[in-house]
């Protein structure tokens, strides 16, 4: 039934065409359908990050003197502040975990192939922005651990010839990590990166709607017709079940394992022992640690950093490198996905020993 208000709005906003699209949109059902839920899980955690992030910014002060204290205040004085920070911290981990799962599922299923190259590439940008959000957010509590992690992280680009020094200076706002770095990271974390993430999610989701859901090879090669489920409302209901489940796990962890806060960072103090970055950077951390100081007169970390950049660029151009038609198998590419998983897991476990 079209009420007066509805048709009045429709005439001005064109809602019915969007609703019609959603009603017609179908999601294929097969034994790999589970991976379709990883994308919307990321959106759920991003939404949680935005809301809890706004709330934390009500109390947080991005200054050398005030940062650590304001986080301590959120944890101890602000009503339910501890749980908001805990949710923000846990949801960041969940978001990044699902970004990796999402990426690997698409890598192995070869869903990035023609015509979905740009969907993949916008996804790699989103990966970088998500990791950057995690990295910049780690500094904001301004304790000894976050200071040293930031020193290391912002020093990494320095090894890149020509531009590296300037990148490090740009990230730090000078030669060293100081109060200028803190305000800069705050600006990245609460303004620049979220805007970029919103923009790239828009492109990413638009492309998914335009190109439709991709089918994995094993399903596509079968002759019989694939079962489908209407996106609205059937698939959305299923997604809601997944969201509720994930939110329950998130809340449980957030309540029982809130993040700690060390004493305020001292720019002159030696790096604390047992220093570690967040879990999603551990494999890179360990890689940097095991590279020898010199390889044929070149700094070991220069080579390590250049290799990491090369890997990121290869990842970005994966759909161009593997430009086989969608129905061809790609065993080598799948093999590299598993190599990456084994490498990342091994390095992570090693760094924890």
């Amino acid at each position, binding site marked *: 039934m079209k009420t007066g208000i509805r048709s009045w709005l429709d005439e001005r906003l064109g809602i019915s065409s969007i609703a019609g699209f959603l009603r017609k949109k179908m999601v294929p059902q097969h034994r790999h359908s589970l991976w379709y839920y990883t994308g919307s899980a990321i959106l759920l955690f991003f939404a949680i990050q935005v809301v809890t992030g706004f709330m934390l910014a009500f109390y947080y002060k991005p200054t050398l003197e005030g940062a650590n204290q304001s986080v301590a205040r959120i944890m101890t004085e602000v009503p339910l502040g501890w749980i908001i920070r805990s949710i923000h911290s846990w949801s960041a981990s969940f978001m990044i975990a699902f970004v990796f799962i999402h990426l690997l599922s698409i890598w192995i299923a070869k869903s990035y192939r023609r015509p979905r190259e740009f969907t993949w590439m916008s996804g790699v940008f989103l990966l970088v922005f998500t990791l950057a959000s995690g990295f910049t957010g780690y500094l904001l509590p301004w304790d000894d651990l976050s200071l040293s992690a930031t*020193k290391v992280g912002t020093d990494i680009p320095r090894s890149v010839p020509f531009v590296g020094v300037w990148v490090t200076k740009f990230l730090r706002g*000078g030669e060293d990590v100081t109060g200028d770095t803190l305000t800069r990271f705050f600006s990245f974390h609460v303004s620049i990166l979220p805007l970029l993430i919103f923009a790239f999610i828009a492109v990413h989701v638009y492309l998914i709607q335009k190109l439709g859901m991709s089918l994995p090879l094993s399903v596509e090669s079968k002759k019989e017709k694939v079962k489908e489920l209407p996106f609205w409302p059937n698939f959305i209901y299923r997604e809601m079940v997944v969201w509720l489940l994930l939110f329950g796990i998130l809340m449980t962890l957030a309540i029982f394992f809130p993040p700690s806060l060390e004493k305020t960072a001292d720019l002159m103090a030696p790096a604390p*022992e047992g*220093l570690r970055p967040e879990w999603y950077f551990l494999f890179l951390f360990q890689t940097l640690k095991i590279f020898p100081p010199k390889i044929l007169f070149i700094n070991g970390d220069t080579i390590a950093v250049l290799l990491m950049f090369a890997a990121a660029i290869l990842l970005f151009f994966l759909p161009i490198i593997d430009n086989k038609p969608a129905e061809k198998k790609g065993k080598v590419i799948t093999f590299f996905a598993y190599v990456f998983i084994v490498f990342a897991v091994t390095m992570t476990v090693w760094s924890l020993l």
Partner: protein
Amino acid sequence: MKLKHSFFTRRQFLNGLLGGWAGAFLASFLYPALKFCFPPTREPDQVVLPFSDFEDMEPGSVRNFSWGTKPGMLKKRADGSYQAFVAVCTHLDCNVVYLPDKKKFFCACHDGWYDENGVNIGGPPPNPLRQLSVKREGEELIITKKSVE
């Protein structure tokens, strides 16, 4: 000399001119914006310390001072002379600590080791710790960059 064939058409030339102008116009905005993003660096040319603060040091011990925004370390050698370091790891910029019982500098970030003269001896550091020169003038210790000597 008049060329028979032109390398580009009049349209291409004008488009190139317009594009080049637009590029230069944008660059004139980009340059000051970039300039804004890099605050002046603050590495000091010299730091003056009162000698009385360091007079009572045991030989072989170290004491910290501020080298601009970086930590500096003053070490008293066995013969009573002083040696100054920028106490920042040459691997990835973490602050190092001096372990007097081991007579070594240690960086906890990636397990880097330096001997008592700041020479890198273990772990990932590629270079020795940066040294500063120390001069005593009356009741003051003057710490300067090595290159300024």
